[in-house]
């Protein structure tokens, strides 16, 4: 079957997306689970161990506290409470409680990913959510795992919740009363908290609840908008302090009547990095404050309690014990012992025993060789000692012996808990190797196929013979298919651990196997063909050997070097440096080529340098006049006419000479707009300067100017209707930014009430859709009329400009210059570099790809989840809607690569030098994208036990996966354009 190389490449990338998805599913391990979840509820609690006499205490111990209030402050990192800069200054009451009051304070370490939903899960289930939970952070499905809230509800406790909506989604129907606030309007940091606090007075007076949960979002929002050094943080902390005081005094006054202690928990879900975001693994993001306040924790005046370092997961076990509930089955945390220190020794040991039994059971279910684990041995030993202690206790033995033995048992238990919890936390990093392998094989086969078909696909015809049907009926195919199926059956029946690919239905798995074997056959036949061609070529070497220009060498080395650099974690963290470096070098290489073409009239015959001493100025015009090029550097482009540099007039000449430098300057400016990465992320940059509240006027001027320039640059090739729509749309963008309070209107000095700008944003969305619609209409028209070529160019440009408008709406105002400079660079490149130098489609494609990657980082992105601008997904949406929000966020994040790719389409189809340019471009684009992904998948597999696998390599893997998906979409778009091209 003959296929155009564009279609072929698009198919390949789509298959690759499947492979990458399978790999990702296997790579991100399912978190450890207790298999007996459903029976767990019915299971009776473990009885007290005893040696000899039976102990009579088999029920769960009664709750320690009557009421529990959990006050969760989003983004409360440890030094906001314990540090002298913030805590002592802004939280006087809390500081008093920590230092002198009846409380225990801890620094709770959150695990990756430091994003709200996984952290709430961790605190309530005590388990470690898998990394993939980040992706599901936006639409949190109900939590089915065993957790404290479900247990409390089952025990008949009445729970009230106010705050972040995530809780309501995680625990639907668990709360007798709730009021959820959406966390998606990040710029709002007063209303979200007032929504919580306004219920407090009423609720605290009532006595009809057992658990009250408050989730305050304001602090985190301030962090996202203006960073931890903002003065707003202090205000917010003071507000939180007063809320805490209100709750505490109310609880105390109630205790005076009932005489049973209550518990107040102040905690944070994750910290806040120095830039204000979270999601990664810096100390500032991991360490959160955790304070347990109760009159049961009384202390003597001299008792100084320093905040101890504990795990965030320990909270679940502690809360369960405090409320008299069974510990959640998947919890890997250990009880925070200070909370039960004041109880009698028998109770203390009982609590420790319950915790240890739960942990050891989890260990038994997840580790085959659990008996060899040191934690398990310690647990068995302490259980034995505990039994002895119970016997002595029941015999009412000498109190000193009893006390000493009790202390020893306690020490043993604590040690066992620590070891068990540690080894369980380590278990999380288990991979589903089989699914990973299948995915990798698919991706690699596609890559090899692409590489092998390169010479054919990039030939003038841009068509290739895809051996699709013959392999399906060949013996090899059936053999491979049979072997693979047999392997599949063997692996799936023998594997102890669960495996995703085995979980698929037999039909799907069989389909995948058939695909893999068909691809293998295709690879083999392509290989055979390449060998045959090679032999043919060697026999008659009349074929002129193409020489590589410096630019080709640079492109090849740059691609290879980038792929190799992905093996080092620092290079992944600082990948933006790699791209900036490559793009700069590319510009310099282009500059060299331009200058050579301009000044050296003839490459083939170098001028003897005798007469040149007269001075450059006099000789320049003469040189330009006889500017005939023989282009020795690209002999394989036979069809190429002399470069058009000589046809340019004076000012254009100067523009040609200046444009590389302008582009370089633009790149340098953009580089200092957003500092990303890790090592230099804290450096001051223009973006922070602009977003600080003192420079709102400057930001407004810049935004307005940028929008104007965008209009000027985009409108020149649009039709009249889309020109008008573009102008109105850009105006709407400014209104939207003014409405949500990012920028100012010149006639409006004082800031009015900040709305969510839904109307303004929808106004822009309408224009975006309108422009895209006009573009599509033009494309269809060009199909029908078939003669009018300009309509198609206009249509493509309109689609491109619609995307630009959407990007302008979604980008933060300080990022609008990125868009402007991207348009400017594209214009300069088109007019003064690619047209005069006449690069071929492959080179132009790869240059577009490089610039797209560089712009991905110019936007402020990095290989870290924390830099994804989630707020872009809610522009123009009233409530959270999954599909549009995901689409908008993905577009805003990958706007750079997408815009450059769509510019490539419109550039190549307006420059109709050869009909095959678009399919060549599509093929090159697919190849350059799939190469890093395939290499990275292998790298990650081999580095899966690396120390930084979760903090550095995994986020990058998610980005790469997303990138492949977007590449597939782009390639399909390319192919569609190519189809219309060939038909018309």
């Amino acid at each position, binding site marked *: 079957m003959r296929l155009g190389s564009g279609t072929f490449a698009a198919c390949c990338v789509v298959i690759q997306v499947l492979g990458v998805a399978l790999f990702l599913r296997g790579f991100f391990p399912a978190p450890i689970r207790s298999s007996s979840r459903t029976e767990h509820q019915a299971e009776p609690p473990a009885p007290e161990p005893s040696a000899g006499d039976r102990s009579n205490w088999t029920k769960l111990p009664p709750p320690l506290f009557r009421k529990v209030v959990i006050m969760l402050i989003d983004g409360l990192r440890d030094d906001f409470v314990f540090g002298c800069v913030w805590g002592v200054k802004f939280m006087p009451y809390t500081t008093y409680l920590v230092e002198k009051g009846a409380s225990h304070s801890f620094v709770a370490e959150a695990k990756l990913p430091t994003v709200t939903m996984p952290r709430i899960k961790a605190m309530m289930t005590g388990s470690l959510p898998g990394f993939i939970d980040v992706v599901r952070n936006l639409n949190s499905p109900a939590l089915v795992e065993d957790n404290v809230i479900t247990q409390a509800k089952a025990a008949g406790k009445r729970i009230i919740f106010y705050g972040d909506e995530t809780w309501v989604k995680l625990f639907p129907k668990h709360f007798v009363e709730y009021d959820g606030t959406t966390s998606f309007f990040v710029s709002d940091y007063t209303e979200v908290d007032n929504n919580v606090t306004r219920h407090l007075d009423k609720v605290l007076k009532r006595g009809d609840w057992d658990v009250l949960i408050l989730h305050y979002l304001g602090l985190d929002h301030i962090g996202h908008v203006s960073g931890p050094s903002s003065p707003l943080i202090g205000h917010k902390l003071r507000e939180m302090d007063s809320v805490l005081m209100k709750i505490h005094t109310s609880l105390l006054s109630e205790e005076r009547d009932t005489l049973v202690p209550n518990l107040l928990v102040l905690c944070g879900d994750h910290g806040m990095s120095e830039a204000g975001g979270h999601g990664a693994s810096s100390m500032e993001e991991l360490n959160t404050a955790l304070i347990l306040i109760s009159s049961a924790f009384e202390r003597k005046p001299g008792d100084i309690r320093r905040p101890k370092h504990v795990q965030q997961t320990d909270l679940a076990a502690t809360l369960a014990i405090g409320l008299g509930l069974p510990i959640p089955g998947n919890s890997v945390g250990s009880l925070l012992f200070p909370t039960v220190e004041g109880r009698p020794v028998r109770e203390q040991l009982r609590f420790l025993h319950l915790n240890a039994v739960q942990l050891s059971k989890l260990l038994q279910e997840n580790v085959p060789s659990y008996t060899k684990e040191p934690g398990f041995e310690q647990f068995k030993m302490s259980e034995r000692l505990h039994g002895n202690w119970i016997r002595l206790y029941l015999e009412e033995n000498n109190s000193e012996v009893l006390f000493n033995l009790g202390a020893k048992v306690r020490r043993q238990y604590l040690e066992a808990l620590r070891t068990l919890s540690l080894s369980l936390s380590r278990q999380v990093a288990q991979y589903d190797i089989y699914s990973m392998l299948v995915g990798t094989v698919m991706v690699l086969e596609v890559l090899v196929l692409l590489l092998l078909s390169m010479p054919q696909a990039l030939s003038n015809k841009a068509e290739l013979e895809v051996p699709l049907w013959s392999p399906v009926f060949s013996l090899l195919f059936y053999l491979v298919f049979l072997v693979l199926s047999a392997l599949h059956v063997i692996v799936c029946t023998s594997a102890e651990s669960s495996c995703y690919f085995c979980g698929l239905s037999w039909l799907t798995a069989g389909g995948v196997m058939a695909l893999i074997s068909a691809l293998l056959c295709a690879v083999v036949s392509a290989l055979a063909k390449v060998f045959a061609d090679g032999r043919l070529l060697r026999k008659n070497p009349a074929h002129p050997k193409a020489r590589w220009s410096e630019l080709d060498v640079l492109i090849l080395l740059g691609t290879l070097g980038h792929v190799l650099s992905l093996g080092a974690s620092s290079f992944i963290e600082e990948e933006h440096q790699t791209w900036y470096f490559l793009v700069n070098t590319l510009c310099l290489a282009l500059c060299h080529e331009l200058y050579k073409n301009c000044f050296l009239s003839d490459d083939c015959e170098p001028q003897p340098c005798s007469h040149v001493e007269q001075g450059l100025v006099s000789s320049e015009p003469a040189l330009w006049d006889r500017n005939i090029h023989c282009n*020795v550097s690209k002999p394989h482009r036979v069809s190429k006419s002399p470069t058009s540099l000589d046809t340019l007039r004076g000012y254009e000449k100067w523009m040609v000479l200046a444009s590389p430098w302008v582009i370089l300057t633009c790149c340098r400016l953009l580089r200092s707009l957003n500092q990303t990465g890790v090592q230099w992320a804290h450096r001051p940059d223009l973006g922070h300067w602009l977003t600080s509240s003192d420079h709102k006027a400057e930001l407004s001027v810049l935004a307005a100017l940028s929008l104007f320039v965008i209009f000027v640059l985009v409108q020149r090739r649009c039709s009249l209707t889309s020109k008008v729509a573009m102008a109105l749309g850009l105006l709407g963008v400014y209104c939207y930014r003014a409405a949500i309070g990012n920028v100012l209107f010149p006639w409006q000095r004082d800031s009015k009430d900040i709305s969510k700008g839904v109307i303004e944003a929808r106004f822009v969305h309408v224009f975006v859709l309108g422009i895209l619609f006009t573009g599509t209409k033009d494309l269809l028209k060009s199909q029908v009329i078939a003669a009018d070529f300009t309509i198609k160019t206009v249509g493509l440009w309109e689609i491109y400009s619609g995307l630009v408008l959407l990007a302008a709406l979604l980008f933060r105002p300080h990022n609008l210059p990125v868009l402007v400079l991207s348009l400017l660079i594209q214009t300069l490149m088109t007019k003064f570099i690619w047209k005069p130098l006449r690069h071929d489609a492959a080179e132009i494609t790869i240059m577009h790809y490089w610039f797209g990657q560089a712009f991905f980082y110019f936007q402020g992105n990095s290989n870290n989840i924390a830099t994804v601008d989630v707020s872009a997904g809610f522009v123009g949406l009233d409530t959270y809607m999954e599909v549009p929000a995901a689409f908008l966020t993905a577009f805003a994040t990958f706007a750079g690569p997408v815009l450059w790719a769509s510019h490539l389409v419109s550039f190549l189809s307006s420059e109709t030098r050869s009909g095959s340019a678009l399919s060549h471009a599509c093929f090159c684009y697919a190849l350059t994208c799939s190469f890093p992904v395939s290499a990275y998948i292998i790298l990650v597999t081999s580095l899966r036990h690396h120390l930084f696998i979760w903090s550095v390599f995994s986020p990058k893997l998610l980005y790469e996966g997303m990138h492949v998906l977007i590449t597939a979409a782009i390639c399909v778009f390319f192919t569609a354009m190519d189809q219309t091209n060939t038909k018309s």
Partner: protein
Amino acid sequence: MKDTDIKRLLYTHLLCIFSIILSIFIPSFFLENFSILETHLTWLCICSVFVTAVNLVLYLVVKPNASSKRSSLSYKVVRFLKCCIYFLMSCFFFHVIFVLYGAPLIELVLETFLFAVTLSTFTTVPCLCLLGPNIKAWLRVFSRNGVTSIWENSLQITTISSFIGTWLGAFPIPLDWERPWQVWPISCTLGATFGYVAGLVISPLWIYWNRKQLTYKNN
């Protein structure tokens, strides 16, 4: 092209390498606490002075392009001044390029500029000695098939290898090894120096091995 020419080329290059080695060891006799990493700027100055001096001396002694037609004194002075201006311009040019590549704009200006001076001594000074202040000849030498003698060929090789060395020298900067030589611009200057030395070593050998294939238009 004779073998004596290649031999002369080799000796001059060995002298250049020797001057760089001297610049590492001689100052430690006169200056206390001298080391390449600790007092990097001093070493940069000394190294560039040494290399420039050796290049000038070699130019006066060897005279690779001996066909100076007009040799009046005023012409020589003008030519020398022009060379000085070109040298300064190339220093500023390299400085600008470094900033475009991401060197800090305001901090470490002195370091960046001295690095630019060093790179200029490795690249521009030999060009000025050999080709004179003549941009067109430079462009010719640095384009494909543009060289006309072994001197120009070796110039091409050493210059390009210095650039490549500098380029590669930037690679270790983002790595988190926290070594003293990863600081800007030390790794780049070291890369430039290694590249220059490598070019000096490679070019005579390369020319010797390829002497059969090399045919120059002027010879």
